[in-house]
């Protein structure tokens, strides 16, 4: 048989061009991913490099002394304690409300209502932090003065949708057969929810809460109008404005003094360390608990 030589598909000009285009797009996509990783490395490395110098025991135990001479000890103990108090209170406010919200939405609410309320949470989640800050300023601070608990409230508003949505996600993973089994044994709905459903989700809720905490611990905007006029002394009193790490960084960075910049870098290192470690741990746990829950199905 004498068929005319088939055109060699793999050598044709057109194929070569299409492959070249595809190859170059693949290269660009890889480059984009590398770029993002590189930016992360550059930012973290420059924070680590510049912050490590000022990061010593004094940084955790001494309070800021802006008149300190070089070599004299100065630190950010008040900001560290203040951040602990503010964030801790915010967790106490947001966690119960967030979990109860998720229980209602997943276990009790009619489908329609649940959809609307979930949408409200998502919209709340999208409101800029600075707007929440202004809201709390208008609600509590204007005319009454700043206080750490007001800052906590602002952070709690940011945290609420994060906790609620994370809890909803793990609640949805609990198999319905568990609920049915418990109800069939005659357990009340509340008993079923608290003794059967919730224990399955503890891991997921803890990781969700940890991720949310990592998110809000670094927020500065809600603190500006609620807890920025703080003294330099270490204090635990939530009825007074307290210093905080994000504001310490923000205010020090605005000054021209290189020594303050060094302190700001050190504070940034502490903050970034906490945030990155917390989210990494939470992520590792999420992967595990999800595997467990979905694996059991």
């Amino acid at each position, binding site marked *: 048989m004498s068929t005319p030589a088939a055109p060699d598909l793999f050598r044709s000009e057109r194929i070569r061009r299409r492959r070249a*285009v*595809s190859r170059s797009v693949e290269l660009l*996509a890889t*480059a984009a*991913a590398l770029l*993002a*990783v590189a*930016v*992360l490395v550059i*930012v973290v490395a*420059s*924070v680590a490099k510049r912050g490590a110098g000022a990061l010593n025991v004094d940084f955790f135990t001494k309070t800021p002394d802006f008149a300190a001479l070089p070599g004299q000890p100065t630190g950010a103990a008040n900001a560290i304690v203040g951040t602990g108090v503010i964030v801790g209170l915010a967790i106490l406010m947001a966690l119960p*409300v967030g979990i*109860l*919200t998720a*229980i*209602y939405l997943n276990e*009790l*609410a009619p489908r329609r209502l649940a*959809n609307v*309320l979930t*949408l*409200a949470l998502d*919209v*709340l*989640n*999208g*409101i*800029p*932090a*600075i*707007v929440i800050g202004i*809201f709390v300023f*208008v609600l509590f601070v*204007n005319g009454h003065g700043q206080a750490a608990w007001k800052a906590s409230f602002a952070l709690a508003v940011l945290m*609420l949708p994060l906790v*609620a949505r994370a809890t909803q996600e793990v609640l949805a993973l609990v198999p*319905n057969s568990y609920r049915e089994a418990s*109800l069939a044994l005659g357990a009340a*709905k*509340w*008993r079923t929810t608290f003794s059967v459903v919730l224990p399955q989700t503890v891991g997921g809720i803890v990781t969700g809460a940890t991720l949310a905490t990592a*998110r809000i*611990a*670094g*927020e*500065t905007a809600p603190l*500006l109008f609620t807890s920025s*006029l703080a003294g330099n002394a270490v204090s635990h009193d939530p009825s007074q404005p307290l210093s905080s790490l*994000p504001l310490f960084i*923000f205010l020090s*960075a605005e000054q021209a003094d290189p020594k303050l*910049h060094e302190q700001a870098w050190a504070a*940034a290192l502490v*903050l*970034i360390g906490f*945030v*990155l470690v917390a989210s*990494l741990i939470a*992520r590792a746990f999420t992967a595990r608990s999800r595997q467990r829950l979905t694996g059991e199905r």
Partner: protein
Amino acid sequence: MAVASKPATGPAAFQRRGRFRPGDTVLYVLTLAAALSGVVLLVLIARELLMEASPAIHKFGSGFLTTEAWDKLDPHHPAQKIYGARSFIFGTAVTSFGALLLATPIAIAIALFLTELAPRGVRGAVGVLVDMLAAIPSVVLGLWGILVLGPFIVNTLAPALHGTLGWLPIFSTKPSVGSNVFAAILILTIMIVPIISSVCRELFLGVPQELKDGALALGATRWEVARGVTFPYARAGIAAAVILGLGRAVGEAIAVTQVIGNAVAIHWSLFDAGDTLASRIAGQYIGADTRIKVASLVYLALILLVFSLIANLLAQIIVRRVASRHRAA
């Protein structure tokens, strides 16, 4: 249908059993109250901002949006000050769209890399690292922006761009200090790339494998599969992701106020100082002393609120529509 297996819910379910269970009532009331808190907060935020901004709304009206002056003496009433949002709206638009323009292709490319190209091991690691980028607190990014990125722009990036592309209005001036609109765009880009790319990654993972296999079997290259199958399939979702990124860029106050220079001015060159709505609010936390100034600041917050409500509702509606379409499929 999965509906049948869901136990009956709501108060009716308790009553049907004919036994009064106080624990259930407590649970119901308590959780309902908590669940309403989101809506209550939304309403309260809108109400409080409207009320507090009302002096400025009454005084300046919608002219607030088009007035460029901020905290300037009124030429007509020498004892009074006037406030306007025009230069901040301009700054917000320029920085947000600039950041979106840079971030969207990068984010989509990263998502493509993570779903289609990367080997399994690399995929997880790079995915986590990109997510970590989103976890960096904005104040830390801003600090880095002032002290590292700013000098780099002044000494390296700006001379290069001004030298080669100086005929473009956006690169027409040379920056004297590191605080400028360009720095804000770059910082915002860093912040929103991980947001857009993580949504896109989920979307691309949701594209049915058989569609992609079909295209590959027809001889399509990887890029042709992405362009012809993945992108069209995920189009609506990508739009929602971009809107979410836009909302984030518009609302970011701290990192922007640290690097943008805080100038009440409208310049086309990105190397000049400017300001955004969110950044202006953040910059005025001290010295908001007169009632009209506080009201004007809250007015700015109100503009941000309205924008974020619209953007988020739009994005969420798109996301929900896409999700329900996928469930149906």
